[in-house]
């Protein structure tokens, strides 16, 4: 997996490559939910890790970050491809008041 240059959160993967996103929460225990544009991926992240295979041409995946507190908490995010590539997604996600912030990723082959 490699990051597409000058594009925000776009990653080029090999067909069938497994992508893993790891979330490290600080001062929060609520969790992260996710849904892809084609709804093939949907749910809540278990054990702070989500893995999936990029089989088609593209996957647009959105993550919603939930917090118990309106300030003072964060999630750090790491992306890893099974065929190589390790990326920290900065900055960390912090609360936007009481509504959940969103991150959007595009995985293409």
């Amino acid at each position: 997996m490699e990051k597409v240059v000058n594009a925000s959160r776009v990653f080029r993967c090999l067909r069938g490559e497994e992508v893993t996103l790891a979330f490290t929460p600080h001062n929060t225990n609520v969790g992260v939910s996710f849904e892809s544009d084609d709804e093939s991926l949907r749910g809540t992240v278990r054990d702070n890790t989500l893995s999936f295979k990029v089989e088609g041409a593209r996957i647009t995946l959105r993550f919603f970050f939930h917090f118990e507190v309106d300030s003072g908490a964060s999630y750090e995010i790491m992306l890893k491809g099974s065929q190589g590539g390790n990326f920290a997604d900065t900055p960390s996600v912090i609360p936007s008041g009481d509504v959940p912030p969103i991150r959007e990723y595009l995985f293409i082959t």
Partner: protein
Amino acid sequence: MKKNLFFAAASIVALILVTTMALAQQPAPQTIDQEIESLEKRLLELKQRKRDTLIKQVNALRGEVENLERARNEPLTVSVEQPRTNADPGAPTISSPPSSVGFDATGGRAPSAGRVNVNPTVSNPAIGAQQGAGNHTDDRCYLIRLDPGRYSRFDQQLCFLARNIYRKRITENDPKKVIDLTENETEILTVLYGQIALTSDNLARDERAKLILDVEASRTDKQLGADDRSSGTTSVAVRGGIPTILSWAVENGAATASSSGSTLTFRVNPVGLIEALSGQGYASSFGNSENDWFTNFLRRGSIGLSFDVSRGSDIPTFIGSKQQVSAISYRYELINQRDPRRRRYRQLWANFLEEEGLKLMTEQTGQLRRLLAPRTPESNFAAGFRNRALQQWLDRTNEALKETTVAPTALNENAAIEEIHMILASRLSELPINELEQDHDFIDAINSFVGAYKPYLQGRKEILDRVAKGALVTFEFTNYREVNAPDVSNFRFIAEKAAFGKVNLTANASLSIYNKLPKMMTPGGMINGAEIKRLRDFSFTGQMDVPLRDVMGLGNSNLSFAGKYQRLTSDAVALDGAVLPNTKGDVAVGQVKLVIPIKDTGFKLPISITFANRTELVREKEVRGNFGVTFDLDTLFARFKPFK
């Protein structure tokens, strides 16, 4: 000014740290006077050190401000697209009060930061925002971050958008970072919705508009002022919460003591303070202690110092001398069920995530597909809006954001965020609202996007309401230092529990003993025929707190009713050490108290009326009115360094 305030607060924090560390290091055989003398020396040393540091920091900030002002005076050449003023286009400046959006007397909406009226002749958007906002100070976003609950979600999200752009710039070391739809969707869409709702009568009457444009707030569980024995206190009952870092309170008047005076109280959580100063911040410090039983144990304690500022001076002045130290206390939280991050609430949050969290996500993801254009290789997969007018507005906003002049550094944090905030506020007034209103699919999608918040926020609120009803039990030991009379030790249990609605009940049970019997000071044991017992008094207190609605736009006030029964087991000893005959007996006190917050400052004004059948020293009925000021640094700190 704000920065000076911050530095003043920081120096107080440092002073208290040294004080608490000094207390911990004092050898056991030392007398209180020796301890205080040692503390004073340490305080003086620290003051000197802190003064040197502050001078350096102030000089650096002066340079920064000069640079900023110089940069603002240089004209930029960013063109303004379709100038659209929301009110009188001829008026060059319209004031935007720091208050959050609400309804004005005529039924329309009061102006807000986002609804800034820009003079079309101004080419620099930052200048435009500043001028257009009239009395708009350049610390608005700072104030919102300080206490977001006092502002609408519209105001909050505009500020958070500015903050997030700043964070992106500083983490990627790129001052040209702008709005990015892959990470700013929540903030930008909420703000766009709010701006449209502000100018569209149809949306403004919508429930969803209220959700975004109206204000909510409040927390009332911390004892910031002195307790009921201190000179000049406005409290009868003592509340159980402890500050995460530090709080202080200055109060005037008197409640149950018979002498008037002024007491300045500092209360510090040593663990929180040490972690704060070591850079761990409010956020990570809590998380660490949850997993570390020893830190968790220490975090539950706080140390308090009260100074009677009327001692040693004709005009009450805080000089921090040992003579002014009127009480030293240690407080430990035995039970605290009022933190939503506690393990006991995890299942509730898990259920919330599976139900409301997923519903919100599904609804908003669906609407985002309608609002955002597909990301294509031709545009290098750039994220953008489907609506062309909106995308053009976003492009021009991003161009304006690239013209910021304040470097994104930690030292410049507030100035950098404020500059971004002002540009965003200015650009909002240029939003092509006519075109957007004609795009029915856009309006429907953004309506649904924001509408999804309602059940989500309701579910979240239900959990937080339950958390707020949790029990709080605290033990407190206080050593009262009198000038001439014998010192007194007080042991107090404090219990709090929500009763019904938002009404909070507090109960205190306490007993006080003399550290030394008065007879030890006056040989013979009998003074004027009175026998003094070691047990000075015991008391029981009950208090009911009722949060009030924000009717004056200041924030949520708190009304409380309290009653106290106290039994004096022997005749009272006056401040000069004399025993007052015929003062043994029962004291009954009733109190009505109103605490009014001062919007945007972290300060609160407690005003109370106290009725007593007698005082400790005088067997006469008494009615007394008190007022004071309290300040909670936690609110400031939570915003100042919220994450590691």
